[in-house]
């Protein structure tokens, strides 16, 4: 957000949050304060003892002392204080001037990074960013996105596989000629040299996932709501975190999603011009995911319950990213950003003029979703139910726009065949430490491949899934050899390789990871 908007935001958000909590009859102010104290005490016990730690400790000590026997008016003041404290941290690194400049410069620098160009080469080329469209492909309904972003405020809701997602989306949004997006990024990303550089200077605000208090979540949501009302497009990852398993998101976080409807309702109440909010689902599809191995390890270690923060992830050293990109480009690996149809906060499709339409093409007067007995009524339960419907529609969109590439396809078949050979019922043990030498006959692979390909073609035609060009045009043999090309890039121990007429795997975990993008399609 721009400087002047941030100033207004601070006052507005502090007063809104107090007002909302006073309205809530179920939870008293003092309960919110106790909740803050409980969670902050717990968090500070595990925190590294640095400058921020001391600052936080002093602040919350003060809040604890003042909360004892506090009357209602002190409670209100304390709540406002903590709100302002949280808000300051969320927006702290943000420098409006640098933001203005970097929205212009940044895409170039990301582009350079992704092309792994050395500074010397850049100077030689007179600073023209090399085209990366060959490898990073934008497809789907992006033209609609361009049109509707002039009619209202857009929230991009992508799937989340990699930490490269947000810089890539930032870059593509710029290339589409759209304004930069406001988005929340994990505190750990700000600490990373590569991402920290971009994040702090982009529209990113800080999200500290270790802060678990009710109030902190309220502040984050209100910040997003407010920025939407001021007309800033937002980027939410509704899955909450990178998919650990490689399975496409099927359960979304409704708290943040609901801010779209809140902003729309506020816009109507304030008679704002262009009050509309549009959600645009986006699937990110990589032939090769940089941090796949770390992610799947985390998934298996916790049997599906992902830790939020991976501290020991070294995938994001600048040198590693550059060498990864370099290899990817030379092998012609693709990254596909597939934009879905835009939807309104109630889950209806939106046409290119920004009108919500039903399946039979009737234009919907959508403000009436918020009417009861003929007038606009605020109803929290109703709005939550609408957001559930919206979440279902986004999940549907993800499923049909998920682009399956050769690595996913081949991994799926190979993994299923390896799994069949294995007799033990302990699945996790099987993929972590396979005790037998696994191999499959090529002829078996091709047999299964032909069957699956036929099925997927039909599903693609019915818009149940999206296939990459290679899968649409290639034969089983070509698809396999395309996928095997990347095998060494996927991991140090090859997930799949060919020797004579058989296929082998030295890394079932990673094979499982890529196989998972076809999970949930009842294949």
């Amino acid at each position, binding site marked *: 957000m721009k400087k002047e908007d941030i100033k207004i935001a601070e006052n507005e958000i502090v007063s809104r949050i107090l007002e909302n909590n006073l309205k809530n009859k179920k939870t008293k102010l003092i309960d919110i304060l106790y909740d803050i104290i409980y969670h902050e005490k717990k968090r500070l016990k595990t925190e590294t003892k640095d400058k921020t730690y001391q600052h936080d400790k002093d602040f919350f000590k003060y809040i604890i002392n003042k909360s004892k026997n506090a009357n209602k008016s002190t409670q209100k003041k304390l709540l406002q204080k903590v709100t302002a404290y949280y808000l300051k941290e969320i927006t702290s690194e943000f420098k409006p001037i640098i933001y203005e400049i970097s929205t212009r410069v940044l895409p170039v620098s990301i582009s350079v990074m992704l092309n792994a160009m050395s500074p010397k080469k850049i100077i030689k080329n007179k600073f023209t960013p090399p085209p990366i469209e060959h490898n990073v492909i934008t497809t789907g309904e992006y033209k609609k996105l361009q049109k509707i972003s002039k009619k209202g405020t857009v929230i991009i809701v992508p799937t989340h596989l990699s930490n490269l997602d947000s810089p890539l989306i930032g870059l593509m949004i710029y290339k589409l000629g759209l304004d930069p997006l406001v988005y929340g990024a994990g505190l750990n990303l700000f600490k990373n040299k590569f991402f920290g550089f971009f994040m702090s200077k982009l529209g990113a605000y800080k999200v500290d996932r270790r802060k678990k208090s009710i109030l902190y979540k309220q502040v984050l949501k209100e910040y997003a709501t407010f920025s939407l009302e001021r007309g800033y497009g937002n980027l939410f990852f509704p899955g909450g975190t990178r998919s650990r398993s490689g399975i496409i998101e099927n359960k979304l976080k409704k708290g943040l999603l609901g801010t779209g409807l809140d902003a729309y309702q506020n816009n109507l109440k304030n008679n704002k011009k262009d009050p509309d909010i549009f959600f645009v689902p986006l699937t990110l599809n990589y032939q090769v995911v940089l941090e796949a191995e770390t992610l799947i390890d985390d998934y298996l270690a916790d049997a599906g319950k992902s830790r939020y923060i991976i501290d020991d992830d070294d995938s994001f050293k600048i040198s590693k990213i550059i060498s990864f990109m370099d290899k990817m480009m030379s092998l012609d690996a693709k990254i596909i950003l597939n934009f879905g149809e835009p939807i309104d906060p*109630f*889950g*209806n499709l939106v046409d290119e003029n920004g009108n*919500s339409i*039903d*399946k*039979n093409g*009737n234009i*919907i*007067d*959508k403000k*009436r*979703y918020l*009417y*009861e007995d*003929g007038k606009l009524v605020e*109803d929290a*339960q*109703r709005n939550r*139910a*609408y957001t*559930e*419907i919206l979440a279902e529609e986004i999940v549907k969109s993800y499923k049909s726009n998920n682009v399956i590439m050769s690595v996913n396809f081949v991994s799926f078949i190979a993994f299923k065949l390896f799994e069949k050979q294995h007799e033990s019922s302990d699945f996790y043990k099987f993929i972590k430490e396979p005790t037998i030498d696994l191999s499959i006959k090529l002829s078996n692979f091709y047999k299964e491949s032909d069957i699956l390909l036929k099925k997927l073609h039909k599903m693609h035609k019915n818009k149940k899934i999206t296939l990459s060009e290679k899968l649409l045009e290639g034969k089983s043999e070509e698809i396999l050899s395309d996928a095997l090309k990347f095998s060494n890039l996927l991991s140090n121990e090859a997930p799949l390789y060919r020797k004579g007429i058989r296929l082998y795997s030295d890394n079932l975990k990673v094979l499982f990871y890529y196989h998972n993008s076809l999970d949930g399609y*009842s294949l």
Partner: protein
Amino acid sequence: MDIVFKGEFMNYKVGIIGSGSWGTTVGHLIALNGYKVSMYSRNKKQIENINKEHINKKYLPEFKLSKNIEASNSLKEVTENSDIIFIAVPSHSFRDTVKKMSNYLRPDQIVISLTKGIEIKTYNVMSQIISQESCIKLIGVLSGPNLAKEIMKNQPAATVIASKFDFVIKTVSKVISSDRFMVFAQRDVTGVEVAGALKNVIAIASGIGEGLGLGINATSFLVTLGISEIKYLALKLGAKPETFYGLAGTGDLMATSFSVLSRNFRFGKMVGKSNGIEEALKSVNQVVEGYTTTEVAHLFAKSININMPILEAVYRILYKKGKVDEVLSELLKIRKDYLWE
């Protein structure tokens, strides 16, 4: 089953789409509470009967209807002028009806399905069809042990309104509940709908048992197995198990499986007495939803790999020319070992 709302007067206009026995009964209940009810029918003679003589001659000839009910043959007018709309048309024409209504519907209207069934090919339940074909989100489902004729006789009954929206639950309860008709609220729309549709198949099974003279022991066995079978399928679709112990589950199943007032039971009984299927359908003289549901549910269960022995038995009898006594005795065959319940 937690919230019970008392009826109170508000100025809602209510529309009923379809003028079969259940649609008419629901319209009558609401009209008795003082609301204006407009009822859509395609049949001109029926419209005249209802408006002039206040009788639905075809389906409920022995009852006088409330004068607050007005019948109309304009789908547009009934749809446009109603705040709350109940749809009570057979499941096979449900999608088509909603499609036609979609031109006239607005987002602040409430639409309630009274129809119990699963659509052929898509395996959709009625609430899904409403949301797919129209702008309506304020959707609800009314279901329970509600035999129309008992309600028309002013005998006491209870029902379930299921919706994702509290507003829908409150509003529908307001217009329909009375001293003789108690309303319970539910969030589990899927559970209520699947139970409502599939219980008709179990009712047919129960009717067949009765027709064959198997006795109440065997019939109770069939019905009990039936509900766990339905529950199993519904859980796969995201329903909640508790729903099946409530009014829309066990409650509805009991009313339908043991009463001659139930069409599905009567149909089953005729089949059990070894009358042909055609003849049995004819003698009921109304839509037997369970007949269609049997085939749809059979295909659906097959597509998601679920074993439903009672459903399969009914399917074989109705669609595969299975001999009634053979199929049933195979189903009820005494095994030498035992099974865990």
